């Protein structure tokens, strides 16, 4: 790898060195920070004149000055430096002073605030840091970098969705993901939710045909849409974790907000500044669930033609195949980013483009993305500035089916004496394992990925307009307007020969499109005034939001007349081969014309054929904020927001909530403590806020279904979509401190928070028919969520050429269900009930992140009860809490070394505690492939007492019945309870990202005529994973990110591990 790097480097230099560079009349140069990293946004002025410019992203500037004049370099947060203009370029390096003291934080409503006055915790990550991880979904680059932020990615497929949660889970049934705001405008981060709730909402076609179309978000994944954002366009990401920070953003931000500020064009004095970088990535899957391949297919030790491996032991001479290795491939992807900056005094532009093309470790799994963005800043008059921007994004994801019936599980239970590569018959059809009837056959994983295909394509345009008017020094009016529009088109195709469908269906095709149109604007007016030592600021504003998502889906079966019942495909009455079949449908899989017209149906709502379903939210809000400070040392802020939301009926539509915060700079009040330089800064802060979380649209409107009784007409369905639903109410307080010690070498931030959510909406639980319905939805539950967040940064070494920075982000959360109605013994999100009898259920008094499932029946002393008839345990077939997914704590450790022109950054992600239901292992066990079943020939007596009536007496009968699982597969198949597969206290220590960069010194670049800056890098992702988890990867989720509530993380079923990635590339400025 290193050799390749050097080769590229030297070959580039050879070409470029032949053109020596000569100094031109305008003076130019590079401004660098410590260790030669380019500094952007540094003001460069000619001393004694009004001439000034700023450095671009590559740290480069150009200014006209004559030799002998003095240039002044300055910026907030850096010291000022002067340099005389000589005959060549003027390169200077600046060092940071008094870190953070002068920073500006972008908070709600695109307001810029001095961190001093914030009474709540916030953390900022630079775009550079995230882009450097080379992760196409920038969310995945945030894990470990912010205390209290958790990313749960679905699995290691290309285009997989990731869910993000700040400070843990508050709502049982509603969305817990934060709001995304780009340059003050709200941007959508939906993941397509394919469940239509019996046709009352959006979703795919529902059909019971082996449940392949609407898969409850289990077997198909759809990229979460914020991943459309190009990571290299991001200047910074501010994470507002508590609702106090987002009380102003309203109910959509009750789970926090991620505020993204994009890069903007700079004044380049009319010069075109170009930046280019690329990355080439190789991916390798190195972790698989372990399987046991010692036994042949069969039952209870006897050979049989089944896909369960409880048959006789293979003889040593049996040829076996490493099917897992033969199936997966090496992934490859490439990224190319280009940026162009152009600016003059009153107008600047930035254009950026990005191309990403990935081929994953699973055959046929690809992800491709194009981004274009153009932004502008124009000062129309002295007091009016506009900042329009437009992004155009296209992405396409081809993805295999995961989870049940997907490639991985089929691969794992594929007979080890059968080569998985022989998936095709001579005519290109399916090579069935001949001992099974077609409907009970198993799809070869290759057959599966080649023939059961799905795809989604998205075209998106995000346009924003910012208007800032500053008529006087004390008043500022700002407007942020944005349109966010996209259209996704997708299909899910099942081959007629797939065993996931009954043969009679002749294959199926599900096509859908989804249109999203979001408009929002925010207009604020802020006035500031000082009265002696007191300062005051008041803001009033209004916000309008209108989001509409339309979805239309069609479903059809019998692809080109294939109606085979015996594994054959037909057209026009005669049998055709797969090759003919493939040519007949001409690989135009998305064309529903390939399904027979009579089978094309749309089931979203049977009574309204040929219309799309849509979901719309409109909300008008007014808000105000008043902040007073005393001598910039004590800051008190109060805000209030009034909402009027279309989700609720007229009489309950208007609601409001307050928030207040206090910040006290102790070190300024008592400057004495700063003496000696030990304590440089001490701030105490606290805030308290209320907020509301609304249900999804239409959740309060019961719908009528058609009835077929005499006279027809309508009747209510089972579900009470309660008219009287109100928003969930969330109350949070947090207390924290910020401390800087030892000449600012050590920064410490500590927060304790406590969130109570009342009136939570429990959806569709069974209740007395007294309500008039069978399933009820009411505001009843409440939860508490509390935690501690710490971040600690320090610099162990600062030398002339060497610097070492360390940062820790610690997070510990605890959550609890405070109340659930007595008649709701367990509330669960049904999407998570993916395999066997374990699901994301929660019970009164338990954690909100619990796993409920079947366990062993036990006596009062806690001993397992054994059935005297067969010596096997008795299963308690009720859902009880058998695990808690919440980790004890997580710790992200960032190390950053800089030595001369080298820098090395890496992030360790430590998770301690938290349980995982290893559904994959249970599936393997039930099918005789798990390592658990390897010792099946060994006789054993299960520890426990007989369920003989004496089990709860003083002398229960100890079990002495010896069993040999080899002859008694029930031992694994039906008598191992789900609790056996909950792996307790799963820890991981992961090297998330490691990047080595070499940045050429400006002097060294002089010989390269066109380069203003150049850096080379190697980045590896997920290189090391140390875990006590027995499965492939403890970071996996049974559901995609669209599943609400706590979601499907901590349920591992049919997921591949995150592959190891190695990226190399270079970054150049021209």
């Amino acid at each position, binding site marked *: 790898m290193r050799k390749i790097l050097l080769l590229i480097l030297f070959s580039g230099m050879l070409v470029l060195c032949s053109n020596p560079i000569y100094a031109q009349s305008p003076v130019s140069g590079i401004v660098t920070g410590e260790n030669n990293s380019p500094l952007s946004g540094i003001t460069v002025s000619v001393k004694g004149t009004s001439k000034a410019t700023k450095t671009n992203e590559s740290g480069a500037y150009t200014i006209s000055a004559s030799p002998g004049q003095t240039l002044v370099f300055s910026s907030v947060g850096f010291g000022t430096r002067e340099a005389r203009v000589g005959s060549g370029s003027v390169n200077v390096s600046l060092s940071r002073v008094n870190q953070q003291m002068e920073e500006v934080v972008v908070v709600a409503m695109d307001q810029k605030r001095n961190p001093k006055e914030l009474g709540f915790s916030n953390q900022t990550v630079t775009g550079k840091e995230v882009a450097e991880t080379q992760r196409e979904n920038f969310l995945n680059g945030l894990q470990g970098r912010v205390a209290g932020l958790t990313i749960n990615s679905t699995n290691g497929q290309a285009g997989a969705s990731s869910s993000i949660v700040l400070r843990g889970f508050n709502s049982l049934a509603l969305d817990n993901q934060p709001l995304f705001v780009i340059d003050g405008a709200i941007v959508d981060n939906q993941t397509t939710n394919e469940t239509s709730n019996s046709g009352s909402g959006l979703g795919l076609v529902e059909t019971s045909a082996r449940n392949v179309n609407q898969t409850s978000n289990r077997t198909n994944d759809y990229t979460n849409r914020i991943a459309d954002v190009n990571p290299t366009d991001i200047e910074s990401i501010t994470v507002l974790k508590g609702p106090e920070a987002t009380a102003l953003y309203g109910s959509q931000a009750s789970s926090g907000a991620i505020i993204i500020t994009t890069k903007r064009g700079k004044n380049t004095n009319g010069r075109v500044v170009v930046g280019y970088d690329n990355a080439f990535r190789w991916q390798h899957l190195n972790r698989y669930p372990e399987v046991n391949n010692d036994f042949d297919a069969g039952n209870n030790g006897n050979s049989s033609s089944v896909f369960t491996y409880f048959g006789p032991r293979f003889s040593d001479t049996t040829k076996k195949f490493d099917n897992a290795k033969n199936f997966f491939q090496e992934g490859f992807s490439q990224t190319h980013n280009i940026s162009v900056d152009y600016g003059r005094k009153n107008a600047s532009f930035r254009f950026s483009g990005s191309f990403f093309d990935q081929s994953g470790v699973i055959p046929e799994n690809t992800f491709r993305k194009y981004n274009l963005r153009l932004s502008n800043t124009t000062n129309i008059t002295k007091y009016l500035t506009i900042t329009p921007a437009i992004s155009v994004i296209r992405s396409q994801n081809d993805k295999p089916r995961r989870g049940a019936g997907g490639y991985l599980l089929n691969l794992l239970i594929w007979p080890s004496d059968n080569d998985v590569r022989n998936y095709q018959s001579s005519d290109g059809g399916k090579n069935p394992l001949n001992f099974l009837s077609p409907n009970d056959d198993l799809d070869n994983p290759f057959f599966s990925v080649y023939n059961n295909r799905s795809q989604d394509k998205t075209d998106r345009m995000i346009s924003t307009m910012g208007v800032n008017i500053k*008529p006087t020094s004390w008043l500022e009016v700002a407007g942020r307007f944005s349109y966010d529009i996209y259209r996704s088109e997708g299909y899910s195709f099942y081959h007629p020969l797939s065993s996931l469908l009954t043969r009679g269906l002749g294959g199926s095709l599900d096509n859908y499109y989804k249109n999203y149109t979001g408009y929002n604007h925010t207009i604020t007016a802020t006035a500031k005034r000082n009265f002696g030592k007191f300062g005051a600021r008041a803001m009033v504003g209004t916000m309008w939001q209108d989001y509409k998502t339309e979805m239309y889906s069609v479903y059809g079966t019998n692809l080109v007349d294939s109606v085979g019942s015996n594994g054959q495909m037909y057209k026009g009455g005669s049998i055709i081969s797969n090759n003919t079949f493939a040519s007949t449908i001409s690989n135009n899989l998305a064309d529903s014309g390939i399904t027979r017209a009579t089978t094309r149906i749309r089931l979203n709502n049977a009574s309204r054929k040929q219309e799309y379903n849509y979901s719309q939210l409109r909300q008008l809000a007014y808000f105000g904020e008043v902040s007073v400070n005393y001598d910039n040392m004590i800051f008190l802020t109060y805000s209030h927001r009034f909402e009027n939301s279309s989700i609720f009926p007229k009489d309950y539509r208007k609601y409001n909530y307050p928030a207040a915060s206090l910040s006290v700079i102790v070190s300024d009040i008592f400057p004495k403590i700063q003496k000696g330089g030990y304590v440089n800064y001490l701030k105490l802060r606290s805030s308290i806020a209320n907020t509301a979380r609304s249900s999804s649209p239409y959740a309060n409107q019961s719908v009528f279904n058609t009835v077929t009784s005499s006279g027809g007409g309508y009747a*209510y369905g089972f579900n009470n979509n309660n008219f009287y639903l109100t928003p969930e109410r969330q109350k949070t307080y947090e207390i924290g401190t910020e401390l800087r010690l030892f000449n600012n070498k050590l920064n410490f931030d500590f927060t304790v928070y406590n969130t109570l959510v009342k009136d939570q909406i429990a959806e569709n639980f069974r209740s007395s028919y007294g309500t008039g319905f069978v399933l009820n939805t*009411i505001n009843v539950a409440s939860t508490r969520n509390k935690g501690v967040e710490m971040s600690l940064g320090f610099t162990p070494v600062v030398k002339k050429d060497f610097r070492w920075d360390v940062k820790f982000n610690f997070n510990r959360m605890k959550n609890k269900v405070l109340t659930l109605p007595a008649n709701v013994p367990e509330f669960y999100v049904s999407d998570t009930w993916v395999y066997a009898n374990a699901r994301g259920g929660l019970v009164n008094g338990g954690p909100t992140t619990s796993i409920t499932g079947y366990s062993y029946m036990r006596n009062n002393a806690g001993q397992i009860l054994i059935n005297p008839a067969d010596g096997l345990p008795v299963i308690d077939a009720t859902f009880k809490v058998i695990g808690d997914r919440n980790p004890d704590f997580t710790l992200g450790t960032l190390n950053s070394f800089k030595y001369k022109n080298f820098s090395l950054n890496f992030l360790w992600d430590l998770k301690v505690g938290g349980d995982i239901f290893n559904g994959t292992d249970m599936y393997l066990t039930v099918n005789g492939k798990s390592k658990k079943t390897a010792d099946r020939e060994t006789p054993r007596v299960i520890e426990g007492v007989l369920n003989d009536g004496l089990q709860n007496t003083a002398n229960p009968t100890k079990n002495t019945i010896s069993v040999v699982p080899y002859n008694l597969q029930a031992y694994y198949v039906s008598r191992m309870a789900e609790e056996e597969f909950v792996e307790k206290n799963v820890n991981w220590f992961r090297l998330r990202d490691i990047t080595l960069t070499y940045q050429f010194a400006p002097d060294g670049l002089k010989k390269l005529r066109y380069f203003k800056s150049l850096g080379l890098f190697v980045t590896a992702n997920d290189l090391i994973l140390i875990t006590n988890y027995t499965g492939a990867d403890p970071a996996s989720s049974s559901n995609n990110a669209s599943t609400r509530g706590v979601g499907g993380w901590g349920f591992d079923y049919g997921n591949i591990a995150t592959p190891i990635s190695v990226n190399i590339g270079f970054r150049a400025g021209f």
Partner: protein
Amino acid sequence: MKKILFSISILVTATLVMPGCDKQIDDAYANPNADVKVPIEQLLPGIISSMSGNSAGHGTLNDIRFVGKYVQNFLFCNASGDYDRMSGTRTTSDNAASVWRTHFYDIGQNCVQMIQWGSEEGKWDYVGVGKAIQAWSWLTLTDLHGDVINPAEAFNTSALTFSYVTQDVIYNYVRQLCRESIENLNKTGGAVSSANLALGDAYFYNGDAAKWKKFVYGVMARSFNHLTNKASYNADSVIYYCNLSIAANAENASVKYASTGISGNTNFFGPLRGNFGSVAIGTETAIRQSAFIADLESGLNISFFNVADPRAIYLLRKNTAGTFKGLSPNKGQNVIAANDRPESFFGASQVSNTVNNATPGNDNNCRYLFRNNSETPIITASEIQFMKAEAAYRKGDKTTALAAYTLGISLNIDMLTTTYGTNVPPAEAITPTIKANFLANPAVVPTTAAQLNLSHIMLQKYIALYIHGAIETWVDMRRYHYDDFEAGTDRQVYTGFVVPTGADLYPDNNGKRVYRIRPRYNSEYVWNLNELRRIGADKLDYHTVECWFSQP
């Protein structure tokens, strides 16, 4: 200043635009994807279908399959049937609690909405019909279950638990609903229209509000008639409402069916829907006529000794021997000689002890309530006359009682010949002469009023309500504690009726008879258990607790 004005004007403009937002917000409220409001004319058909047996299989007919065994209309074809033995419903089963579901769910909110939207739209006829059905439904519910959910709490979509009230509260509420119903049915003008009402009740009264009023009076009459054991019993109230109620078969309240060959709009008891096939204990819907009715119809009951009732061929099934025989509780049909085993109600011969009633499942073999298109009576003119007869008899006005009694039989025969004559062998059809002879038979209709006794009235009522009125018959029988004797006589009211005892009574009953059905398991036992404990409904023999209506 100019700049400040400019800024302020932007803000003001923005604020002025806002009022339009209220409408936009309102526009976005309603669910565009499914119907959240439908015309009330489209709600009534489903509600009416739920009075008998709706497309989902719920309604009175569903429960009658079980209740009919308590009163021995019919019995289980195998031995050891739960309901033959007067058991309550067991464990997690919802058997015999279908009315609970239809009352709260199928009729429930649909009817509440119909009434609400009907009042908003001035369709008072729909409001009256809605309240009429609610009155009937509450009365039917409480007659089956005794204590039930408080009407003041019912249909509150935000409640988690519901408290129960005693039956007297329900009876008062039923009468209140009846009065409100009449009040609304009396209204004219506005949007009240017979043609419009017919859109909703085409399969009931076809838009005739006057008939709906008679139905309401019938419910009123029932509510007073049920209280014969109470000191407050007032025979005049019963007679008063009977006189206002259904007087002719043309006015019979009955649910009709479109029967287009699909299950949803076909009679629940018809062969197409095949609701008599299962034999699992606890379900036991495979039924045969009882010995009690067979004997009553073939002159073996001392009350109508040696009278072969010409209605038998309409109501009952013959056996291979050509006679009418039936089953005894808990014995099954196997103990009967093969040739004496009655055919199933679908006309399947039982010589070889055929369990499956649905075979041959041919509508042409079915009669009476068991055809795909047979209408289901809810309240008949005949029943009204028997209520009047009993009330007049109790009052001492035996002349009126005899007249009503005679008219009751006559109306029932007319109903059978006009509505349920299909597939009756022509040779055995009731002709006017046969009817006249039957009514002239002193063993049936006493020649003098003084000879009339309670057994006459109650047994003829039993026949007139055979199967379709099983719930009302159960009310009657419970009033007479199944085998009470007529006061001051040595005559059992239901002569010949043998109450199961000993091994023929379910063990959980602790030797007691069944008096109520416990609330629906999957509504109440799972989700409202605390309240059930309060009223003792968690006890295994809760079903043997006598209801308020039959207590003194």
